[in-house]
């Protein structure tokens, strides 16, 4: 009975482009099937696109200073220090993301084969995901603090105590602890997606491990590296709670998320907060686009593994 109901729709869908009977049968439901997308689309429009557009509009309607008043305030007002905060965030996020990716590659490279205890080791490396920002922050404060175990140990060896928390280093540490498991998991999956026979072929042709890595693994891994970098970068770029807890939010770790939240939740300056949020998104997208451009320049071709 649905056959007759659906027939006119099929005429719209360019009949004949897929001649097989099974495909025509599948195509019959195309209109009905696309309806399944509707709830997700509605949610995305109502809860993501609409608020975003609303925020964009709001950022152009500050109480003072004309259309771009909020942006001018964000970039120039010494009490906001917006430009500074972008710089601070990038200084945290770029090294953290880069380090997490670069360290993950050799470890994942060593771990992609099969050996006993692989699953256990993977689990141990992934466990930091479960810690959460607050436990990490508490732990860093306890462990790296002035009277913490590390400084005690250094004291035994005769070193001066190091100031490792309540500053830039504390936040960087927490970004590494929370970001590394993600980077590692992603890199490991991309690496295991590369067909080992390609490397085996190179080996029979006499390539040593350096050549194999540079000529075969690295190009095939490039897309995965780019995506992993982007994802860990996003994670690190949105640093907010740990910048407050283990950092120094009024000074050296005044990240952009903190500026945006401060304007929103403390000063109730919604146009400024929206402007800060928009700038934050824009800066992040610029970095991601640059990485993706680099990736497309570096290697053009099929990826071997699915990536």
């Amino acid at each position: 009975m649905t056959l007759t109901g659906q027939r006119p729709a099929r005429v719209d869908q360019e009949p004949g482009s897929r001649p097989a009977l099974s495909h025509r049968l599948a195509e019959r439901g195309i209109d009905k099937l696309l309806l399944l997308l509707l709830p997700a689309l509605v949610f995305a429009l109502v809860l993501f696109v609409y608020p975003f557009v609303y925020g964009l509009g709001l950022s152009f309607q500050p109480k003072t200073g004309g259309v771009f008043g909020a942006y001018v305030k964000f970039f120039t007002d010494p009490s906001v220090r917006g430009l500074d905060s972008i710089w601070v965030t990038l200084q945290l996020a770029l090294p953290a993301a880069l380090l997490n990716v670069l360290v993950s590659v050799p470890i994942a490279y060593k771990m992609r084969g099969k050996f006993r205890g692989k699953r256990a080791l993977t689990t141990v490396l992934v466990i930091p995901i479960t810690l959460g920002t607050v436990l990490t922050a508490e732990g860093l404060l306890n462990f790296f603090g002035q009277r913490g175990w590390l400084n005690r140990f250094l004291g035994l060896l005769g070193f001066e105590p190091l100031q490792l928390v309540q500053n830039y280093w504390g936040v960087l540490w927490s970004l590494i602890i929370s970001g590394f498991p993600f980077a590692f998991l992603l890199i490991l999956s991309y690496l295991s997606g590369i067909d080992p026979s390609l490397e085996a072929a190179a080996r029979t042709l006499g390539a040593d491990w350096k050549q194999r890595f540079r000529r075969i693994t690295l190009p095939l891994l490039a897309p995965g590296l780019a995506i992993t970098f982007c994802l860990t970068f996003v994670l690190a770029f949105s640093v907010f709670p740990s910048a407050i807890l283990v950092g120094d939010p009024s000074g050296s770790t005044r990240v952009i998320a903190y500026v945006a939240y401060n304007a929103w939740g403390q000063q109730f300056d919604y146009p400024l907060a929206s402007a800060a949020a928009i700038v934050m998104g824009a800066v992040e997208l610029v970095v991601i686009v640059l990485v993706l451009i680099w990736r497309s320049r570096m290697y053009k071709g099929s990826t071997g593994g699915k990536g």
Partner: protein
Amino acid sequence: MSLTLKPKAGATPAAAKRPLAASPGTFLIWGSMAVFLLLLLGVVSSVVVNSFAKEWFDTWLPSGYTPAWYADAWKEYDLGQVIGTTLTVSIAVVGISVLIGAPASYVLARRSFPGKNILMLVFLLPIMMPPITYGIPLATLLTYYHLAPGLTGVILANLVPSIPFVILTMTPFIEQINPSIESAARMCGANMLRLFTRILAPLLVPGILAAAVLVLVRTVGMFELTFLTSDSTSDTLVVALFTAMTGAGIRAQQSVDAMAVVYMLMMMVLLVVALRFVNPTQLVSQVREETD
């Protein structure tokens, strides 16, 4: 320590081919990993030890141990209610996002249609954007409509990245199902509803579970969106922890630590469950490892 030994044992047969220069590198890799894990262990255990400490000032270990901080934290921070809220929010988010995301991921896995790329971009952006970026306008809007601060606002805000996440996680699972099974069912007269309940749902159970557990982990750990949309009655555990720690001062640090340990244990259980359903290396690509 067995960490350093195993890969070397695996490498021995190939040692003749492999230049010796590889082994300092191997040593360096496993060594730095051991240092990282050691530091991590120190970080975690200092919190665990402190959560049981009677008093801990300028010494290696606390002067005595007591489990009282856990009871203290439970009472003082109203942990019963906080955990209840966390469960309510995460179960609601998981349920709604799977119900909405699974059908959408089916269409995206099976069909190509004009505008598909734009649609994918709309679904990708919430994952690629820092939560604060869209969270601030969203929270402003939800407050305007009197949906936030409160439980509704928290759930709605958490759905924004969760639905795309379900879609992205489930699409590869659906791609793995042979379409001819569906065609056969259609030939036998099954309509869409039957197709979904009788054919796809049972085959998709692993995918649905994977997506659900991952969304659960994400939602329990999601700080920013909940923080922006919650009030004191709708705080989840992460947010309660954060407010306890920033507003500490008069309160004992140990009870915050006790709460953090509770949070960690909860997340660990979730993660172990997640790892049972999902092979982590299959998340981004369909790697077929013969046995694992």
